[in-house]
């Protein structure tokens, strides 16, 4: 399946079909991250059940140092 993650085209296995498993795929499931799926911000509790589909646009953001 093809996705656009943080502006980059990526190819991921079809077994990765939820936001939660996508985060696992990138080793991000233990990190504090916020996910936006097709311009819609996801609440943390919905990562488990939210599906990702071919062509989805995903933004994964986090907190970095700033003033």
């Amino acid at each position: 399946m093809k996705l656009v993650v943080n502006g980059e085209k990526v190819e991921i296995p079809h077994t990765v079909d939820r936001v939660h498993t996508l985060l696992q795929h990138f080793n991000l499931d233990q990190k504090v991250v916020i996910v936006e799926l097709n311009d819609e911000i996801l609440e943390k509790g919905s990562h488990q059940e939210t599906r990702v589909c071919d062509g989805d646009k995903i933004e994964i953001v986090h907190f970095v140092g700033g003033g």
Partner: protein
Amino acid sequence: MLKIGSYEFKSRLLLGTGKYPNFEIQKEAVAVSKAEILTFAVRRMNIFEASQPNFLEKLDLSRYTLLPNTAGAKTAEEAVRIAKLAKASGLCDMIKVEVIGCQKTLLPDPVETLKATEELLKEGFIVLPYTSDDVLLARRLEELGSHAIMPGASPIGSGQGIVNPLNLSFIIEQANVPVIVDAGIGTPSDAALAMELGADGVLLNTAVSGAKDPVKMANAMKLAIEAGRLGFEAGRIPKKRYATASSPMEGMSIG
């Protein structure tokens, strides 16, 4: 106590988390500063480098209140999006509205700042807008319902200190919500002056992170803010044009 929305803080120093030499120094500086509010920015993650360490992971989050900023936003719409992203982390409901209108001076865009503040207040955020030292703009932001007003002392990261203490004192005088002097602080005396003018807090980053010894400077800022606050509460003496002797004139044993 510094009260912002439903929160209460003992410390009046709000510390930024950008540009420290390394995490170890940063961790120590944060600890020494006794700051309870830490600011962060929201950025895209490098998904191919998940193992990259992140300062947030090194913190005991039960001890700190996170104040994410909307830095990077040039419009109200972008600021609102960043604020919503930050809130979706489930870690915070406070937001520092920062909408930069000029890349050279990094001064905030007043119109977009107002718009973003209004929208985020409607959405239920605890909103702390970063603003210029414009007195009327500060009033308008308060009238919208902002939980604190954060006027800049001088441009971000410039270390020029308080360039317009008069405006700042007008802002402080008129405000019924906390006024936190944000940006431009260079030295402990700048921070102390802000507090002596009656500010409720000071937010700084580069003054500590860019110091030769950030840990020592964090301590200096903590002490300066405490001293400035005490001085404000104690009430300064009026300035006089000529001298007034501190020692009595009576009982002199000479002449």
